[in-house]
Structures are given as C-alpha cells and as structure tokens.
C-alpha cells in the first residue's frame, strides 16, 4: 500500500481534522495564558511603580532632595535601567535628578498613568509608562518603566508556543500515519477478499481476528452475508439443473410410450404422434443443453487442461460444417494459422466452435459469408467466427449470453437460446474472454484464450 493511498484514507483525514482542531485549541489556550501572564506582570510592575513612587514622595517630604539622591544614583547604575526610570524636575520641568536626560512629552492614558517615549542606551526609542506626582516644593517627580521590558517574557512564551505546536504537528502526522496504516491494513484485507469473491471464488471469506473490535464485527457480518449468498447462488444454479434432471425421466417415459403408440397407430394418427415426438425430442435436447451448461459451470476451471491444437480443431469444425454451409449456399472459409496451441479441453473447445458456426450459418442468409479464424496473437490465442448475417443490436450484445435469451422476440427460429450461454460457460472454464462485436454487417464472436506459455 502506497503513501499516496494512505494519505487519502479516512483515518488519516480524521487525524488531520483533529490536528487542526487541536491546533486551534492550543492557540486559544496559549493566547489566554499569554494574556493572563501579561496582565499579572503588568499589575505587578504597576504595583512596584506605585510603591517606588510612594517611597520617593515620602523620602522627599522627610529629607528633601538629598534624601532621594543616593537611591536614584543606585538605580541609575542598575543593569537594566529601562525597568526603573526616574526624573525629578523643577517647576518648569527642567531635570534636576534622574536617569532621563530631559522631561518627556507625556500622554495621559486616562487611568492616572501616562505614556511617553524613552531613549534607550543604544539610541532606540521605546515606549514607557509611568506616573507623575507634584512635589510639595513645586517640582515634579516622574517614575516609570519601559513597556518593552515585558517583551522578553513574551518571546519566551512565543517560542514555547511554536515548539508545542510543532511537536503536536509532527506527533499528529506520525500518529495519523500509524493509525491509518493499521486501519488500512485491515480494510485492505477485506478489500482483497471481496475482490476475490467478485472474481468468482464464492468460497472465500473475510479475515477474522479474535480482537472482537468493530472490524471483526464487520468481517463476521459480511461472512454471514456471504454464506447466505453462496447458499442462494448454489440453489439457483442447482435449480435449473434439478428441474431439468427431474423432468427428464417422465419426459423420456412419455417419449417412449409415444414411440410404442406410433408403431400401432393408423396412418393419420402417425403424423400427429410424430409431431408430439418431435416436441418431446426438442424438450429433451433443451434439458440436455441446460444440464451441460450446469455441469461445465460447476466444473472447477483450469482443472485437467491439456494441450489443444486449436488449428486442427478449427479445421475439423469447418470441415464438419462445410456440407451444411454448401447446402445453404453460404461461403464458409477457414483461416487457421499453424501452431495455434492452447491449454484446454479439446472436446469442449470443439463444441463451442460448432455452436458458433451453427449460429453463424443459421442466421446468415443464402449467398452470405462465414469465416472462422484461429491464430496466436500478442498475449493470447484468438479464435474468431464472423458472419455477414443480421448481427445483434448493440444493446443486446451481453444479454445474448443469458440462458434462453433470444434476439428474435417472436422466437420463430429453431433453438432454445442456449448456444451462446454454453459457449460462455466453456469460455469461463478456460479463462478465455468472450467478445461479441458488430462485423459491419453481421456478428463477430471472438474467444481470447490465454497463451499456454503464460499459464
């Protein structure tokens, strides 16, 4: 089973769909976590700013500028100055002390906080957030922090998020392949079995493990169904066989009594009895044909096949039918190339061929042509009988293989409509392909036997 087939399986598609769902839920989860963490950190940062602001204000009230100077200096030397920004300015916003070079342009955010731009050490501008208090001395104190400082954490979260999604994707892919592999294996086993059954091996059954899972239940149910179908099929097949068989005995008895009766009948009655005898004979021969078809169909194909010289068989059949063709003024030609050999039953092949020739001559009008042809072809051995008769309408080409089917609906021509069914039965017993085509005009029947080398 190929990867392409596996990617198309329902299991794989289900896994894929589940994966998308998982992807979406992980994204939502991560977004919620991100938002909650951000919110928490912001609150914490804001709280610490508030604390710092209160500390500075209190210190300033107690000791004035000198009281807070060492604190600001210490903060200035801190590793990440962006985390704590201080600026003490006079009444006219001129900087007095702090780690900001000048009083920034402030944008109030509405909740008592202000946003401003901050010049980092490497020259970039970064957004910052802070609070301003008016000092009792008339100056201003700005305490703030870089908003970007939180970005580092966000990046870590982002990376974790991508990693989780990546791993999920790979695992889901692998899981999907493994699961579809397992399911596909079991479905394929069922498919293989059903194809064999469709090919005619009705005794074949679905594989059953003792896992008692849903596939097992499916196989068991299918097998139970197949058992019923097999029973039905064989009873249908045996039906005509049995009917023909059972009716043959009384019919033969009837025929023999008519025969006895005819021997002592008057000249007038004799004609009527002859007609009855003819009817009985044609019934008996129909039953014999039906039984022949049933016997051939029930014989295992490929059993006891022998080398058959198809060339000789074709020539013999043509020779047998030459007299009949001449009588009907039909030109019967035989083109049998030397060396056409097949594996089969010589008598059945001859019987199939005589049935085809018989039909061809029966339906071809006087002055017409019938040609039999046997030759080895590319990968088969081809046996063809073509005539210039009325042919068979396109739509009925397959129906004529059915038992008792006749193109002529009035059923006026002699015969029971079993000839081609018999040919069909012989063809399938020999694994040969039977083809009926338009011969423009007429009918062309071909039997493609497998080459003996291939068998």
């Amino acid at each position, binding site marked *: 089973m190929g990867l392409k087939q596996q990617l198309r399986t329902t299991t794989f598609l289900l896994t894929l769909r589940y994966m998308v769902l998982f992807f979406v839920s992980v994204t939502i989860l991560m977004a919620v976590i991100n938002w909650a963490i951000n919110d928490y950190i912001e609150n914490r940062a804001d709280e610490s700013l508030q604390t710092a602001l209160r500390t500075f204000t209190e210190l300033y009230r107690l000791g004035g500028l000198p009281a807070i100077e060492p604190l600001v200096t210490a903060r200035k030397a801190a590793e990440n100055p962006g985390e704590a920004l201080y600026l003490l300015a006079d009444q006219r916003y001129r900087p007095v002390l702090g780690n900001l070079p000048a009083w920034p342009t402030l944008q109030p955010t509405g909740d008592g906080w202000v946003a401003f731009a901050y010049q980092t050490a490497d020259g970039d501008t970064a957004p910052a957030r802070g609070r301003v208090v008016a000092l009792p001395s008339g100056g201003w104190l700005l305490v703030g922090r870089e908003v970007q400082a939180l970005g580092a954490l966000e990046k870590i979260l982002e990376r974790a998020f991508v990693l989780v999604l990546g791993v999920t994707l790979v695992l889901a892919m692998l899981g999907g392949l493994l699961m579809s592999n397992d399911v596909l294996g079991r479905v394929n086993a069922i498919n293989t079995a059903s194809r064999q059954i469709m090919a005619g091996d009705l005794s074949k059954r679905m594989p059953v493990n003792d896992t008692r899972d849903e596939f097992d239940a499916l196989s068991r149910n299918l097998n139970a169904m197949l058992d019923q179908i097999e029973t039905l099929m064989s009873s249908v097949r045996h039906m005509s066989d049995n009917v023909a*068989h059972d009716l043959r005995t009384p019919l033969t*008895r009837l025929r023999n009594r008519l025969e006895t009766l005819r021997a002592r009948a008057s000249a007038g009655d004799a004609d009527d009895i002859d007609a009855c005898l003819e009817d009985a004979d044609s019934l008996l021969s129909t*039953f014999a044909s039906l039984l022949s078809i049933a016997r051939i169909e029930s014989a295992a194909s490929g059993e006891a096949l022998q080398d058959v010289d198809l060339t000789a068989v074709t020539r*013999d059949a043509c020779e047998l*039918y030459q007299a009949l063709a001449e009588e009907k003024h039909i030109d019967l030609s035989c083109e049998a190339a030397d060396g056409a050999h097949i594996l089969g039953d010589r008598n059945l092949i001859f019987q199939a061929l*005589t049935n085809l020739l018989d039909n061809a001559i029966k339906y071809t009008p006087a002055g017409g042509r019938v040609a039999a042809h046997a030759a080895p072809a590319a990968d088969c051995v081809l046996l063809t009988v073509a005539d210039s008769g009325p042919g068979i309408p396109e739509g009925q080409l397959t129906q004529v293989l059915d038992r008792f089917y006749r193109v002529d609906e009035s059923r006026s021509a002699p015969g029971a409509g079993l000839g081609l069914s018999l040919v069909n039965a012989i063809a399938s017993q020999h694994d040969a392909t039977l083809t009926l085509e338009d011969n423009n005009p007429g009918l062309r029947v071909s039997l493609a036997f497998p080459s003996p080398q291939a068998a």
Partner: protein
Amino acid sequence: MRILVIEDDASVAEFLCGGLREAGHVVDHADNGKDGLFLATTESYDAMIVDRMLPGVDGLSVVRTLRASDNDTPVIILSALGQVDDRVKGLQAGGDDYLTKPFAFSELAARLEALLRRQRGGGGAPETTLTVGPLEMDLLRREVRRDGEMIELQPRDFQLLEYLMRHAGQVVTRTMLLEKVWDYHFDPQTNVIDVHISRLRSKIDKGQAQALIQTVRGAGYKIDG
C-alpha cells in the same frame, strides 16, 4: 438381459433403471462401489453401467478389480462433463465405452445395444469386406459398390458409411458418429450430422427402390439390408 447399474446419484439411477426396465431389461442397482463390486462378482450380468465417481470404492477401481479377476462383462462408464482425461483413464481401466453426463436415454440404449451385440458376435478374423444387402464395401481398396456398381465417396463419407455398415441393423446415434468418425466427444445439439447423412444417402440410395439408410426418430440412424 440382466444389467447392473452402479450409480450413487439417486435421480440418475432412477432415470437409468426406469428406462432400462421399460426397454425390457432386468436391472439391479447398487448405490456405492463396495455393494456394486459384491453384486458384480457374485451375480452374472450381461452388461454393467458404472458411474466414475462413487462413494467408497470409485468406479474405475470397480472395473479394474473385475478385469483383474477375468470378468469381461461389457462395461459402460459414466462421468461428469469437464473431466477431460477421464475417458482415457476409463478405457484404460477396462471400460468398453464411455458416456458423459448428461446423456439422452436413447444414447445409452444405442451404446448398450452395440456392446451386447459385440459380446455375442465374438472375435474372429479382421474383416476386409463389409456387406449390407446390395451394398458392398472393400476396406482394402477403399471402394463401395451397390449391386456391383461403383459409388464415389469422399474420405469422410467413406468413414461414415463404414461405421454404419459395421453396426448394420443397430441404431447409431449422432453422438456415436461424431465420436467414431470425427473423433470429438459431445452431444451435437444440431442437425450438422444429418447433412452429412443426407449427402451420403444421395449417393447410396438415390434412384433406388430400397432405402438402406434409415432415420430412427429421436435416436439416430440405422443401415439395414
């Protein structure tokens, strides 16, 4: 005639036994090889009809065992269609004739008649001329004469006439003709043999007061002098 039928298929057995009894024969029936062999060795029969496939001892073994104990009662072996090499095996085992199912009762009757006649006729030196009434066939010179007048026949027609003349007075079925003259074994459900017969008739019986070749309705043909 006393005939033993060894056949396990009840419907075929009924078909056979019923037909044979109506034809005036005394029939014994066994539905398995063992009973059949017991009857065949303890009783005396004029002919036997043995199915190829039997439960217990199969048909070919029955025939082989009989032949090994010098029992030369004529045997017709029956078999299912589609078993190709059976005919050869059946004849090798010692069967005198072979018939594939399904068969018409008239077919079996004609073959049984031919076997019983051969049995009564016995051996003798191989014939070089066959004579039926005014018809004379020289097998060495491949010539046919009626009332001394030469009749030109094609090889196939000659073979056909030879077979009929060898079985003069007996019914010969179309299947037997196809089998012995054309060497193919099946029941021809067509009138193709009839055309050959009518062509032969036109050469043998044309313009003659007495028709030698007769059609036996529902069975086949018969040549009678």
